[in-house]
């Protein structure tokens, strides 16, 4: 009970009056500055409650006299970031594609901006690593349907491919040979294509396919099947296939033709973003020098 207060001999201090299993507690006064520190923290917290958002109400909280919000802070940081980036974007806007390739700093800035823009607009079709998937090209390799120089990539992104309501879009028309050739003939063409791409050895069917190829396909794909970039006709001799290089896929391609579509970004993104995307795609490893012509570069000996 609290009534057993006594004076503790060694220290001269009164005890609290309680006893816990024989243990007593000295009633040593606390330093008064602890109390003043507590009062100071109370004053500080009152100030804080007035100046900053504090009291939860039913549908919102009190706003605080300073009007600070974390969302407002974010807007401010974004505005600062935009202000920092404005000169960089202006420099990229002013530069031509050639100048952009030549200046290492500008190119690096464009590549990084393109990397971010790619993640927003392009990964849905081309994949997060730009490696594509059947029907959507792999942008990392050195095989290009429409050319891999800065100018050509820029045109492709700006005008799209087979965009229905755009005049300047890139278009190629491969006929659906299923309506013009017998299934057997398509099989022979398939064999020939697989032969020239090194997937199977030449045989009699492939030989007949070669004749058919010269009559039907060479006009667009070239006499040796090496493709024509002006027409968007792929190089059939390399191991890279947009729709699959196995016999069934090639057969379907020949019979039904393929008409992949890519959006035109010219009216959806600003010029700076498109330049940055161009620089990024060009930097993925397959970018070509300007002035690379209609034909694919000569085959490299593996």
């Amino acid at each position, binding site marked *: 009970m609290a009534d057993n207060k006594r004076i503790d001999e060694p220290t001269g201090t009164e005890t609290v009056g309680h006893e816990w299993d024989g243990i007593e507690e000295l009633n040593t*006064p606390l330093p*008064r500055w602890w109390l003043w520190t507590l009062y100071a923290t109370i004053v500080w917290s009152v100030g804080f409650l007035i100046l900053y958002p504090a009291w939860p109400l039913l549908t919102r909280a009190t706003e605080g006299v300073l009007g600070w919000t974390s969302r407002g802070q974010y807007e401010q940081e974004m505005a600062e970031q935009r202000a920092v980036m404005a000169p960089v974007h202006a420099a990229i806007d002013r530069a031509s594609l050639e100048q952009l390739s030549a200046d290492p700093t500008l190119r690096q800035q464009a590549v990084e901006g393109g990397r971010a823009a790619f993640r927003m607009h392009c990964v849905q079709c081309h994949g997060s690593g730009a*490696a594509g998937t059947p029907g959507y090209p792999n942008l990392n*390799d*050195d095989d290009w349907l429409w050319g891999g120089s800065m100018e050509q990539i820029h045109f492709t992104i700006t005008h799209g491919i087979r965009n229905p309501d755009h005049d300047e879009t890139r278009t190629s028309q491969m006929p659906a040979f299923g309506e013009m050739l017998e299934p057997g003939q398509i099989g022979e063409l398939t064999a020939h294509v697989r032969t020239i791409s090194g997937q199977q050895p030449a045989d009699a069917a492939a030989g007949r396919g070669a004749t058919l190829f010269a009559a039907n396909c060479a006009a667009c794909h070239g006499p040796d099947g090496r493709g024509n970039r002006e027409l968007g006709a792929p190089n059939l001799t390399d*191991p890279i296939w947009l729709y699959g290089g196995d016999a069934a896929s090639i057969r379907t391609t020949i019979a039904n033709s393929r008409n992949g579509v890519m959006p035109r970004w010219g009216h959806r993104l600003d010029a700076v973003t498109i330049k940055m995307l161009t620089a990024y795609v060009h930097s993925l490893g397959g970018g070509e*020098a300007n002035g690379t012509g209609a034909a694919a570069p000569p*085959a490299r000996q593996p």
Partner: protein
Amino acid sequence: MNEPAAKPKSLYEKRAPVYPKAVDGTFRRIKWAIMIVTLAIYYVTPWLRWDRGPYAPDQAVLVDLAGRRFYMFGIEIWPHEFYYVAGLLIMAGIGLFLVTSSIGRAWCGYACPQTVWTDLFQHVERFIDGDRNAQIRLQKAPWKLGKIARRGAKYAVWLAIAVATGGAWIFYFADAPTLARDFIAGEADPIAYTTVAILTATTFILGGFMREQVCIYMCPWPRIQGAMMDEKTLTVTYKEWRGEPRHRGTKKATLDDIISRGDCIDCNACVAVCPTGIDIRNGPQIGCITCGECIDACDRVMTQIERPRGLIAYDTFENGELDRKKLKSKPVAKALFRPRTILYFSAWAAIGLIMLFGVANRTRLDISAQQDRNPVYVRLSDGQVRNGFTIKLRNMQARPRPVEVSVSGLPGAVLWTADGVREGATTRVTATVEPDALAKLRIFVAAPGGGEERQDIAFSVRALDAEGGEDTTAAIFERPAS
């Protein structure tokens, strides 16, 4: 708290002011020496210079937060080597255990920054207000012009010391001459002014007013002394078996049979000089920081009354027990060199040696390789397969170094940098790494398509300058399943 009378029933009490009297003696002089050395180190170190060449700062001790480097004379620590700082902190901890278990609260009494700055502020106070009795008189005096002038002068000097203390702190984090110039011109970064303001406030309040309240109520160190001190620890001891029963009146003590009187004449010299205001005759306590000033005070008094010195002295509890029974004390060396202290010292020295060895044998050129994960491989139009890698080259020296990166373990491979072209690629790529920097290279490696799906390869970096040096790291080259 000295008299056995009932205390008033209040929960809080005002701080009892402490007016330590000036004293001279062995331990006071040791305190002076340590204070001068520690303050000199603190204030002067940021101004020392160390030439590291044109690419690195020339301040001897510098914590470069923006550049993420710590410079200490000839040693430079990168963030990934922070374990050296951790090691130093562990050594500091073990060092404190060593000191405390051998000579008691020597940290508290001589070296702790709170003690040193409070001591400094108390000296300023003594210089301006006078010694203990004058200070007590001034405290009680009415607020007339003289008191206002003295208080103003004292606070002004304290404020100047506090600002200098805060200023010295910021000089550790930036080039001292440059920052000093900018600070005075008002052009320094706001954080510099904020830091100085905060440290000025804390120094002024802690050294001028809080003083022993920090030791008694705020610091955790006094409260774990019990774990580190044992019966063989040397600590400030009042030999109450010699001093009690106290008696006032030296004439009576010298004339009468002295054996029945204790040597303590209750002159309260030990209480008057104590900077924390405790009475050592109550025994070791939280407030006793073992500064030894009471030893000096009592020795002077003992000399004056022609009694042997050492009524208060550094002694061990064990010797105290022996002394009580009038047995011979154990030699001090045996107390200092015992298993516990030897163990602390060995651990402290071992960590120190390991760190020294580590620092001396660090590699100055380092390579690491990270394979692209998306996509892992790219099939090229001529049948070859390409992998992308991010190579990081770490040049830990204060000058640019030309280096060469090559790949091994992959027959027929060529490598080129991402902003280069595949034409003319060879098995090596050269680069120059900036001084004291990490260079990031995007590298493409192309190899024949046929082969294992996962092949172990290695990237090596070799320095092309006279000093040389090389490093290798393992990586994996992947191909599609064939």
